[in-house]
Every structure is written in structure tokens, then in C-alpha cells.
């Protein structure tokens, strides 16, 4: 009971507060933008003909009404929460009247699939390779790996992605340029293999970047871990290296890294914006980018909201599950 009162409840309250603040901030910021979705739409609708001022005004009114942008910011804010509580994110402006949920729904699984896999793969790879390199710092391959990583790690992600794209679609055209799959979604090998094929390049770029980062972290953690008494003692007792690596080093450096993993899985919803733009991958990151450019608040809100809830929930879960992962945790 005390645990609930002293630990779990405050964490859940914090979860609400953080989400509330996060969402309020993201509600406000796009509204500071001079890019106004109504005028944007007006521009689009009238770009090939001239309309009279009266007709224009009338159209503007209609649009304001349709987009739910009439009233003061406070009214809009209250309205927004009112709708949100019912799970309604409103319509997209750019693609009126398609509901935002539908647009996000179209991209979200791609993003989750791509990022989820890439994050998991790079996490496992990074942890294992990094810990290995930290455990055997004198080996040639360990030094080699570290050098490679140090060179890859600082490459701005965009560049990495772009170079991969050019190499593997142009100079050696083996991967597709755009899209996420071939054919209608189904549980056939054909479709699934096409998903893998189309997702390979973007995933590769994410895995390279992610692994490099995780490698550096894991190596640093492992190289402090190997100086710990229990590792040294197990070494002395000639416990097999493999066992020491997994059950002594990695198991002990796991905690902060699991936290990181959970947090990066929480960020999935904001999508890999750059990845998706570079590789023309059909996820929410690309959607978000378009929405930002066209001032489509509702989509921006929808995706950031998911992202905020995702990260907040991930860190909540980590905090709650921590005691299961670490037998040592004590309550202050």
C-alpha cells in the first residue's frame, strides 16, 4: 500500500502532469506560426482563378468553421481538450475532411514496424558488440570496431542516409527508391518479403546510426563494469568468458540501457522524420513533416500527442518495472 501511495501514485500523477504540459506546449506553438491553414487552403483553392472579395470572405468563413479555428485561442484550447477526451483529434486541414486518426493510422504501422525493428536490432547489436569491445579492449577487432564506430557516429544522420540511398539505389541499384511494400497487404510471403525488401535500406541507415551510438554507451559501461570486483573475481575463478560477458557484464549494464531502449521505443511515434523523408517511406514522420510545412495543426498535434504519450508511458513503465529488473533497488 505504501508503495502505491509513495511511489506508484506520484509517478502516475507525474505522468499526467507531464503529458498535460507537453500537450499544451505543442498546442500553442503551431498557433504562433504565421502559416495559417485557412489562408493556406484559400491560396490552394484559388490559385488558378481570381475570386471576388465577397466570395473570398465567405469561403474563409466556411473554412474557419469547418476547421474549428473560429473563436479565441482559449476557446480552441478548451474545445480541443473536449474533443480529445472523446478520442477525437479532429480533421486534417490539408486533407479535409479526413480525420487525423485515419491519416495517422495509415502511417503509424509502417513507422512502428520500421523503427521498432531497427531500434531493437541496433540495441542488441550495439549492446553485444559494445560490451564485447569493452570486455576485450586490447583485441585488434575491438580497436577496429571502435574506430569504425567513432568515424560513423559523428556522421550527421541525414548524410549517412543520403549516401546509403545514392549508393544502393543509383550507383548499385539494388533497393527501391520509394515506398514500403509491393501489392496489397496480405499474409503472403510475397507481401512480407516485399516489406522487408522495401524496409531494408531505411532500416539499415537507422541500424548503423543506432548501433554506433549504443556501441559507445555499452562499451563505456562495460569497461567500467570489468573493473568491478565480481567480474574480476569471476575472471580469477576462470568462469568462461561467454558467461562473464552475458551474465556478469551485460546483465549488470543492462539497466540504464533498458531504460534507453524503452525511451527510444517511446519516441517511435514521432517517426523517423528524416529517414522517412530521405527514403520516401510511408510513415508518420513524413506525414508530420508535410503537416508542419502546411500548418496542419491537427496532424501535428495528433502525432506529437502520440509521441508525448509514448515517451511518458515508456518512462513510467520503466520506473514501475525497474524493481523487477534490478533486485537491488531500495526505496528512499
Amino acid at each position, binding site marked *: 500500500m505504501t508503495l502505491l501511495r509513495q511511489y506508484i501514485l506520484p509517478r502516475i500523477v507525474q505522468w499526467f502532469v507531464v503529458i498535460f504540459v507537453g500537450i499544451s506546449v505543442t498546442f500553442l506553438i503551431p498557433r504562433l506560426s504565421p502559416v495559417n491553414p485557412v489562408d493556406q487552403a*484559400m491560396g490552394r483553392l*484559388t490559385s488558378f482563378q481570381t475570386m471576388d*472579395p465577397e*466570395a473570398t470572405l465567405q469561403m474563409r468563413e466556411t*473554412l474557419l468553421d469547418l476547421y474549428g479555428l473560429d473563436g479565441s485561442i482559449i476557446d480552441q484550447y478548451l474545445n480541443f481538450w473536449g474533443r480529445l477526451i472523446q478520442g477525437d483529434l479532429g480533421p486534417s486541414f*490539408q486533407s479535409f475532411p479526413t480525420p487525423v486518426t485515419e491519416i495517422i493510422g495509415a502511417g503509424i504501422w509502417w513507422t512502428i514496424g520500421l523503427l521498432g525493428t531497427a531500434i531493437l536490432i541496433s540495441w542488441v547489436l550495439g549492446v553485444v558488440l559494445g560490451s564485447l569491445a569493452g570486455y576485450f579492449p586490447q583485441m585488434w577487432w575491438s580497436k577496429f570496431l571502435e574506430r569504425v564506430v567513432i568515424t560513423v557516429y559523428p556522421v550527421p544522420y541525414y548524410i549517412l542516409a543520403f549516401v546509403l540511398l545514392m549508393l544502393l539505389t*543509383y550507383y548499385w541499384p539494388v533497393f527501391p527508391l520509394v515506398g514500403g511494400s509491393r501489392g496489397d497487404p496480405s499474409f503472403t510471403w510475397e507481401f512480407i518479403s516485399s516489406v522487408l525488401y522495401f524496409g531494408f535500406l531505411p532500416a539499415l541507415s537507422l541500424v548503423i546510426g543506432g548501433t554506433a551510438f549504443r556501441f559507445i554507451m555499452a562499451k563505456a559501461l562495460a569497461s567500467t563494469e570489468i573493473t568491478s570486483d565480481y567480474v574480476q573475481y569471476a575472471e580469477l575463478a576462470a568462469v568462461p568468458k561467454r558467461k562473464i560477458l552475458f551474465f556478469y557484464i551485460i546483465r549488470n549494464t543492462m539497466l540504464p540501457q533498458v531504460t534507453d531502449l524503452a525511451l527510444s521505443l517511446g519516441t517511435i511515434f514521432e517517426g523517423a522524420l528524416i529517414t522517412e523523408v530521405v527514403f520516401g517511406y510511408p510513415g508518420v514522420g513524413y506525414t508530420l513533416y508535410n503537416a508542419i510545412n502546411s500548418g496542419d495543426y491537427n496532424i501535428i498535434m495528433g502525432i506529437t500527442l502520440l509521441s508525448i504519450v509514448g515517451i511518458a508511458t515508456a518512462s513510467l513503465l520503466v520506473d514501475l518495472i525497474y524493481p523487477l529488473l534490478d533486485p537491488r533497488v531500495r526505496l528512499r
Partner: protein
Amino acid sequence: QEPQGLPVDVPREEMFVVDQIFRYGVAGNYNIWQTAGTTPHRHAMMDETLWYVDQETGERIYGAAISDPMYNDDFTQMTVELRDNLEWSDGVPFTAADVVYTVETLKATPELGQSGWHAQFNQFVDSVEATDDYTVVFNLLESNPRFHNIFETRWNGMYIMPKHVVENVEGDLGTWTNPDPVVLGAYLPTQYDPNGFWELYERRDNWETSVAGTVIGNPGPQYVLTIFYGDSSRKAIAMSRGELDVYFDADIEAFETTLDTTPTARSWYADFPWAYPNEVSTRQLAFNYETQPLFQDIKVRWALALALNIVELQTEYIGGVAKVTPLPVPATPSLTAIYLDPMQEWFENLEIDLGDGTMYKPYDSTVPDQIAAWAEEQGYTVPGEPAEVFGPGWWKFDPETAEILLTNAGFSRDGGGNWLTPDGEPFTIDLQSPPDENDAFRMANAAADMWSDFGIDVNLSGLERAVWEQNYFVGQVDVYTPWMNFALASGDSWPEVRGDHPKYYVPNGEDVRPAGGNAFFQGQRLQDPQIGEYIDAMAAVAPDDPANFETATEFFKYWTENMYAITAISFKKFVTWDERYWTGFPTAENPDLMPLYWFQGGKFAIQSLTPVS
């Protein structure tokens, strides 16, 4: 070599792959009368209106109509006769009832706000009736000799609804998504990417009863895939991989790469200058008269024009692939015939006052010859008369005269040779241009370099499109690079310039869009009652009335004498296609149709394709 990277499983040789010019924000919504329905390609594949105007010739192609619009004397009634052999894709015959139903529905439903038709029908249409199955009569609220423009496609024209489908829709038409479209066009959408990257169309079985089928008489490809690849380099890559048959436009570097990597690729001309030069629009360096009041002095404007070296601009910066034009009217065959050729003499004799009483003839008709000389130097052959290929002529490159003009306007040079305004401040120009609009940006680069050479402190910003627009919408720029067009392909000017009327004037600092009018023009913050008079005069007469063209010509002369904006070049488009799988796309050798396939009238180009094998 079977291409690997296409997202659909359709035999490549039965499919024409088209560059989708942007990623659809909304996929699978075929209610394109909705406000968000702007969909290039879709309207060409699926939708029909009454008439098409060929960009090249300015001639009218009959769409669903089989007659010209017929007006009564005071232009308060318009009658149209329709084709009687058309069918909807579900086999139901097309009749006048469909047109009447469409007009009435759009008029009654504000949510169907596409292209302002709802607003315009309410403004003009009193009633519409079908006098028989194939005749429609529009009774107008006020005299309007150009009412038919709503149904006549340059980019798009009012899409006709299938009455038998729409009238059975339950619920709100504003949110209806038309999930199983019944179309009058030749193609039906069969698959789409929910994320809007691509859409697959299949030719309808009864294609012969569609407009394009009737007009062209050729089946065209079984499948058409529109697909969005992204920027030009990616389009070039896609084409080299055989995964793209035609793309919309590219910068010259990407185009050259395409030529290098894809031997079967070509554009309008088989060789230099390749690009399609006849899209009906032109590019300007437009002044904002209120952020920089010095522009209100005509001498300053002319000085800036004369400080530009059009030959260098057209060659070094644009690669020699666009036509030059001194008017905001492009040098297409039809418009050259209507305006540029007849005005040639006037250009030659035009004299401007240098401010001290000296008169000066600024026009240089040798510009196309100089460009041709450059082209030959590069080893290119010029396909035809220089004036046909490179446009009529332009203003002289004459820095000395420009110097006199500025000096007479009270400017002076400082010790470093830089211009000072009459107030003694350095003369600086904030020039903004969006890099994604290739020609405009390169033109801006040229202007920045040349004006800098002339001693003006030019600050060029390459801004992302939305920002750039935002800046001139509210007037945070001295010179910007819009694209303006003062005449339709038919030569009628009023529909294009009506938005330039001074009544739409919006002062600097306010957003121009809510005021109606033409935003590109309004960004200049120009308020000249004389322009209003010309526009009103044109409005009063029928578009094919000779008086209409005369007024327009007078207007253009007035505009030119005043150098209200510096027009440099016509639009060009590297509409590039690969003849690997398909031939029959319009070319300079076969110019009967225009290649702008993303326009509603692009359907004819697609319909004319034949497989290579």
C-alpha cells in the same frame, strides 16, 4: 530487366509510370469536389469537363461538349450541346441531367468548395436546365461573356458528377469519400497507397465511350501508375532504373544526368534545347512598391532592367533552354501570333525618357540570335529560327544607360562604386526566391549577380517555398520572383488579369490572400487606376471579340512602358519521358497535344501512348 522497386504487381509493359508531382495528403478520397480535393493526375485520369484548351495552339478541344458555348446577346444565357455517345464507367449513358445536377449540387453545397465553383455558381447562375438530353442552358444572374471559363480547362474545369450515383449518396456530401468512383474519364483508380505515394489506374473496359477515347481513338496503356519519388535527382534515378516513364520537371543537372544514364529518354525536343517551352506562364522579378518606395520611380525600374544581361541569364544560368519574353505573356506559338509578333514594331520603336529629356530605345531584337550564337558555340544545333526557339527579343544590356537613369533619379556612387540612394544610404535590395522553383531561383541568382556587378547591394535569400510566399503575402521583401501570366492560351487576357485590378489592393503588412484577387500581383502593392480601366474594358466584351485583344494589347504596352515588373523568361518544363516502354507522347515533331500530363487536359497525351514492343 524487371524493375524491382515498383510498389505494384502489374506487368511493366502494360503500365505507364508517371511522376506524381506531389505526395497526396489524402489517399483514397475520390470526392474531388471537396475543398481538399486538389489532385493533379486524378482529374486527368478520371474527370471530365466541357472543354479543353490546348496550351500550344490555344485551340479549343471539345470535352463533354460538342459545341462552343453559345451566349445570348447580353451574355445572360449560355447554351451548350453535349456529346451523345459518352458513357460513365458503369455503362450508364452521360446526359445533360448530369451537368445540371452537378451545377445545382455545387451551388447548394458550400462544403464542396473546390476551385471556388460553389461561390461562382452562386454569384452567376440563376438557374440551369436541360432542354433535352444533350442540351444544357444556363440562365445567368448578370451579364458574363466568360462564364464558360468554369468549364474550360487550362489547369482544371468543373468536374461533372454522375447524377445516378451522387443523388443516392446518403448523408453529407461534404464528408462523402466517393469510395467506388464512377467516372467519365478513361481510367478508374484500382489501388492506392494509403500514404499517398502512389496510385494505380486501370483503363475502363468501355474506354471508347470516354472523351479521350473518342477524341484520340487509341486505347492507351492498360495501367497508369502515378508515383511520387521526391526531388529531381530521385526522379532521374528512377528513370535510369526504368521505374519511371515520364517526369514533370527537373533541374537541368538532373535532366542531363537522365540523358546520360537513360539512352531512351528525351524531352520535347530530341536535342537542345530539349525542354517544353510552351507552358502558358512567365517569370518575373517583381517589385514591392511599398517596402522600397524608390521603386516608384520609373527610372529606377528601367535602370534595373537595363542592368540585366538577358543573354547571359538565359544561357549561363538557365542553360539556354527557355524562351525570353519582354511581356508577362509567354512566347508560345499562339500567344506569339496574337501579341508578341504584332507588337514587334512597337517594341522596336519604344522610347523611354532617361529623366533629362533624352529619349532612349531599350529594345534589342538580336537577343535570340545572340543566344543562338552561344548555343552553336556550345556545339548545339538550334532547331529552327532563333526567334521561334528562344523568344522574340528583350531589353538591351546597357549599364551605362542604367547609370544615367539612376543618376537622374538622384542616386550616386560611393567611393567603392556602390550605389547610394538619394538619401545617401547604400542602395540595398532584399531579393527572395524559392530554390525549389528552379528557373525562378536561377533567374534570381542571375539578377543578384548582375545587379551586384552594377554596384547594388543585393541580398539574395533562397527561402523554402512556404516562407517565401508568406513573405510576399505580407510584404516582407523588396523583390520577389513570382510567375505571372497575362493571357490564356486563347489570347483572352481578362481571366488572368482580373485579379490585378486595383480594387484588390492590400497595403503592405497585410496578408493579401483574404482580399481575393491575384496574390502574385498583389504582392507588388501596386495601385494604378489605369490598370483597373483596362481590366474593366476587357470584362465588358466577349473573349473572342477583336476589341478584347486590342484592349489587352494597349494594357500590355502601358505595363511595359512603366516596367511595373521585369519579365524575363517563359516557363519551360523538362517534361522528360523514357521511350523504353511507351511511345507516342507529344514532342516537338508531333506537337498536336500538350505534354502537361498533370493538367486535366493531360489525358490526351496519355491516351495517345502506344507500347514499344
